[in-house]
């Protein structure tokens, strides 16, 4: 994938299931990294994170993660830890990678 820019997304774990979730443009949470809302401005990202942290009790431990936007507008993780979070463990075919999209 050709890198277009390095931006940020908000990710967390769902309070009930513990599953990794991503904050979307509509203000909801998605299980898919590709659905994450890209935030290009660092100030905006910090403000959005503060707002989520303050107001959304349905998730635990929200944080900003670097993400890349490809030419086809696909959102992908930058750090390998976030890549693992987005698919599940590498030692077993379980977690997100085993769930229907």
């Amino acid at each position, binding site marked *: 994938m050709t890198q277009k820019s390095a931006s940020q997304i908000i990710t967390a774990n769902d309070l009930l299931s513990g599953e990794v979730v991503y904050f979307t443009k509509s203000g909801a949470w998605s299980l898919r990294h590709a659905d994450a809302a890209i935030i290009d401005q660092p100030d905006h990202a910090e403000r959005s994170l503060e707002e989520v942290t303050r107001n959304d*009790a349905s998730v635990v431990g929200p944080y900003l993660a670097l993400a890349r936007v490809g030419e086809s507008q696909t959102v992908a993780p930058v750090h390998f830890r976030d890549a693992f979070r987005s698919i599940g463990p590498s030692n077993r075919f379980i977690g997100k990678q085993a769930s229907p999209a």
Partner: protein
Amino acid sequence: MYNYTAFDKDFVATRAAQFRGQVQRRIDGSLTEDEFKPLRLMNGLYLLLHAYMLRVAIPYGTLSSRQMVALADIADTWDKGYAHFSTRQNVQFHWPKLQEVPDILDALATVDMHAIQTSGACIRSVTSDHFAGASADEMADPRPTAELVRQWSTDHPEFAFLPRKFKVAVTGSEHDRAVTKFHDIGLRLTQNEAGAPGYEVSVGGGLGRTPMIGRVLRSFLHQAELLPYLEAILQVYNQIGRRDNKYKARIKITLHEHGLEDIRARVEENFALQRSRFDGVDQDILARIESDFKPPAFKSAPITYFEEQLANNPIFRAFTKTNLHPHKNPDYSIVTVSLKAHGATPGDASSVQMRVLAEIAARWSHDELRVSHEQNIILPHVHKNDLPAVHKVLLDAGLATANIGLISDLIACPGMDYCDLATARTTNVAQRIAQKFDALKQEHTIGPIKIKISGCINACGHHHVGHIGILGLEKAGIESYQITLGGDGSQNAAIGKPAGKGFSSDEIVPAIERLIGAYLDVRKDASEDFLSTFHRVGPTPIKAALYPQKGLPK
């Protein structure tokens, strides 16, 4: 095995009920995550990379078949059909849902199990020799002491918020299979010159970012003085252990900063006060506990079928060479069941395998199983004539891998495949090393060796005490694996030393292959194991193989 009293059952059931209320209050918003986190951690519930993780205590690694079946049921009902047996002799479920955890705790309570004190800055679940009460080389059974310590430390009001977590291990054998020298307190059962039973007490051992070997605080402590002495150590630590820096809060740092003599003087002064507070009730309790650990009724039967199979069945013979350990009763054996089939994740067992192990234990091992810190399952009392039948059932369940003590019997923490703290993956490295040496058919040629892999500096994979240790770190945005050499978790305790710069994920398995090749080149003969060779020749030939570009002498 220890049998829960009505008091124990009530305590565990009450805690499960309390946690149900706490979870409910978290879900309805009455508790914030900051308020809830210490409560869930007190009940062994973590939030890791992909999901919650529930760590269930298996005190000193001992399980009944009924308890193993209950764990399998939990894996099927509330998890993904498997469980992970850890390097602390506990078991972890990596996919529970928050609202279902109270149901899991209730299910555990019905079989006298819980998740209390498997996390937090408290005295953690006590560990011991996984061959306790069975091994031919044992001087005394450490389990009654371990159970006494468990009872004393459970919900101890004064030690619920220590400066940091605190781990106690007990052994009753000269051959230290419980890694006691790397625990906050290590107890070794011994006798004084008059033959009175007691303990050698070591303090301040530990792994993690500052590995240290425990130092002997008391070379002999009378058996009856154990709890007041432990109370004295913990009180001193609770008072002077650092709380300003979590990385300097373990008792090993307290001991290092104050010095052994200072700590000894403080403990002895406190011990003099504590002794009068213990009026002998603890020894009455110990006597009751000991009655629960009487040896099972061993049968007297010929071992002719065993001998026949040994002579005629090469697969069985190979299994007996690696997976058996001498039992106190010469007609019996201790069986180590490997959870390290080549390519498997160390410590993982499916619910089907767990039920098979429970059935074998019920039928052929006096209803007992053990979890070893090396992430295997032990059948402690199997009559030799039953070994062929046990082997056949294990074979059918994919549990008969004959590799105990060999290179593929490596241990690994869950690493970044699960753990929130990890800086790199481990299981994937473990799988690839095991597969590589299985493909090379070199395992038996290499002989006894311990590889231990941790996914971060916290060292849950005990890499510091691996003959070969592998520490997974992040370097410049990629996983990097640092090799340490010469570690030893036995009675000859030693901390491995870094070999040099780290290797990428792609490079680490070839690096281990070169390292092993160098060992095979320089060992005297097949009887000289890796660690002995390393001690004789030093690190130079190994480093030369690891870093050939440096041009070190071969």
